[in-house]
């Protein structure tokens, strides 16, 4: 059981190297091997979560070098929770997008799944590591894999992928520079060690500069307004098998890394009093919620609309960090899970619609609710949860967030959070209205860039292995909503 922290990223990292080689001889083996690796990692995460709930946080010294000199992997409540969310959502998404992967990667299925595993290895590594520099390495591993995966999305994906690489590298470089400042001020890279040294003495401009640079770098990676410009193009033009995976999990881990800085690197209150990082997160987060929601309302392509909605939801997590009270951190963490699950449900059902009709424009959805009832049921569950209607999961994180804002005297937070629900309703219910209430168009080209009416008329439900993962994610928003008290009291409150 002591080995569990390393067993979370290890199967992914090993299989990332094995899968492309095996697929040279047996292309059919790529998918089952990938699935097995992610399942192994999800199992290790679940076991780690169970162990942490019973016995408290566990630590693993990589290569037998004792921390703080060696690299330490730490799995506490928060890390185990995020790791379970990332791996289990990925598992469902990978099952649901297999057909897209076969279509989009063609004869390069081995390298494709290799990259997917590398991405997840980087993300889970970021979650479990207790070392600032190791976090940078995993950050760059996951980012590199994501650049290459976005690049696979045809002509537009190539340009989006390169621009993502340029901006993502700036983010990584700024983070590394910040770590340098913190290292030269404290002489250590171990998070717990940095914390204890800074608690004794956190004066000095080097630490302040380090904190600002670290948060700027991570802000770029988690697409915090105004550093979000790479995200809409990357999500829209990435292959369907890719954006369904990176939209739910990738930026969430960036947000988790920020939370880690609050919880276990900088002393309590340092990011509020010595450097105004918390205030900046609060203001930028509120701006991001409004900007992301308004931009989402203006979109005619479903994927682009969901991308802007991701910016708004990530901004909400930033608001939680900015308020910084335990209740707000719980709300932010709850939203990490809720948004991962509901965004995965939405992107999976959009991928399913595209599989059947070849289009993802809002205009082309007229009457699709009758043609693809299960897919649109998944979409509806995700949408209802995004808006925040009880008892779906999305309601509870917004509720906690508004409460945290009011408790802290930040009434603007409550106003913006509730307002964002209304704006979410505008852009998502518009989709539902078309899908359920509009008749199937009889004349081709009734809406701009709609698929030929025949495509919708003839569209049947997608195959079971596409629909059921999406539907499972949709149902999970309800289940997680009903279970939220258990999650909050057992997992999150001890963790923050």
């Amino acid at each position: 059981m002591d080995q569990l922290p390393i067993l979370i990223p290890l199967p992914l990292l090993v299989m990332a190297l094995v899968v492309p080689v095996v697929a040279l001889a047996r292309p059919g083996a790529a998918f089952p091997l990938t699935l097995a690796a992610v399942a192994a990692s999800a199992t290790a995460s679940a076991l780690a979560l169970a162990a942490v709930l019973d016995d408290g946080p566990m630590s693993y010294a990589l290569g037998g070098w004792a921390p703080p000199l060696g690299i330490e992997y730490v799995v506490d409540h928060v890390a185990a929770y995020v790791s379970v969310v990332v791996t289990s959502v990925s598992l469902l998404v990978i099952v649901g997008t297999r057909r897209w992967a076969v279509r989009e990667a063609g004869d390069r299925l081995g390298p494709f799944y290799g990259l997917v595993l590398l991405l997840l290895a980087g993300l889970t590594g970021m979650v479990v590591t207790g070392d600032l520099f190791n976090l940078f390495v995993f950050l760059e591993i996951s980012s590199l894999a994501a650049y290459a995966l976005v690049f696979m999305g045809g002509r537009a994906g190539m340009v989006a992928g390169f621009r993502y690489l340029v901006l993502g590298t700036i983010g990584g470089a700024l983070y590394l520079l910040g770590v340098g400042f913190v290292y030269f001020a404290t002489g250590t890279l171990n998070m717990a060690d940095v914390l204890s040294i800074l608690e004794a003495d956190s004066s000095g401009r080097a630490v302040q500069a380090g904190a600002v640079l670290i948060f700027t770098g991570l802000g770029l990676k988690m697409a915090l307004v105004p550093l979000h410009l790479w995200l809409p193009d990357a999500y829209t033009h990435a292959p369907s098998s890719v954006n369904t995976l990176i939209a739910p999990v990738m930026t969430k881990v960036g947000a988790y890394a920020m939370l880690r800085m609050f919880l276990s690197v900088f002393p309590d209150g340092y990011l509020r009093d010595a450097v105004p990082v918390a205030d900046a997160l609060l203001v930028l987060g509120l701006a991001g919620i409004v900007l992301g929601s308004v931009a989402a309302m203006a979109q005619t392509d479903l994927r682009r609309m969901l991308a802007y909605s991701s910016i708004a939801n990530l901004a909400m997590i930033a608001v939680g960090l900015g308020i910084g009270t335990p209740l707000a951190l719980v709300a932010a963490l709850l939203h990490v899970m809720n948004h991962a699950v509901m965004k995965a449900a939405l992107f999976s059902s959009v991928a399913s619609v595209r599989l059947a009709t070849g289009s993802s424009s809002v205009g082309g959805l007229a009457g699709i609710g009758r043609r693809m009832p299960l897919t649109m049921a998944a979409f509806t569950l995700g949408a209802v949860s995004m808006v925040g209607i009880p008892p779906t999961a999305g309601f509870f994180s917004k509720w906690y967030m508004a409460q945290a804002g009011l408790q802290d005297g930040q009434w603007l937070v409550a106003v913006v959070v509730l307002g964002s629900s209304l704006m979410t309703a505008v852009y998502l219910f518009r989709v539902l209205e078309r899908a359920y209430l509009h008749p199937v168009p009889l004349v081709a080209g009734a809406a701009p860039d709609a698929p030929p009416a025949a495509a919708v008329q003839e569209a049947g439900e997608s195959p079971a292995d596409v629909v059921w993962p999406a539907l499972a994610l949709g149902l999970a928003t309800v289940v997680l909503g009903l279970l939220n008290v258990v999650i909050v009291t057992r997992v999150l409150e001890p963790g923050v």
Partner: protein
Amino acid sequence: MIEEIAARFPYWATAALIVIGLYGMIAKRSLVKKLIGMNILQSAIILFFIAGSLREGASVPILFEEGAVARAEDFVNPLPHVLMLTAIVVGVAITGVALAFLVRIREEFGTLDEESLLEQVRR
């Protein structure tokens, strides 16, 4: 002002290189020049770490005599060097991926000019 810059020369050099790199990455239209800017930015950070580990009159952290007492102030801090080895590897990997991207973009679009690429994509 001049003494201030001279006293902390590596930091000013790092700051200048970072600004040059960021300018190249953001303002240049050619994707190759963006990539060059990216490399300048990465080099600046490597320089920053190495400069931070320096110590006047210190040597490499190797014990030459058996049984000699190791005193920390006699040695250059080796850890930033090791970190930068890793950072160089990461940088090379990113540069390699970016160059592969550029080759494919050039094959596909026949240009590496950002404006004309975006125009072609929008059409």
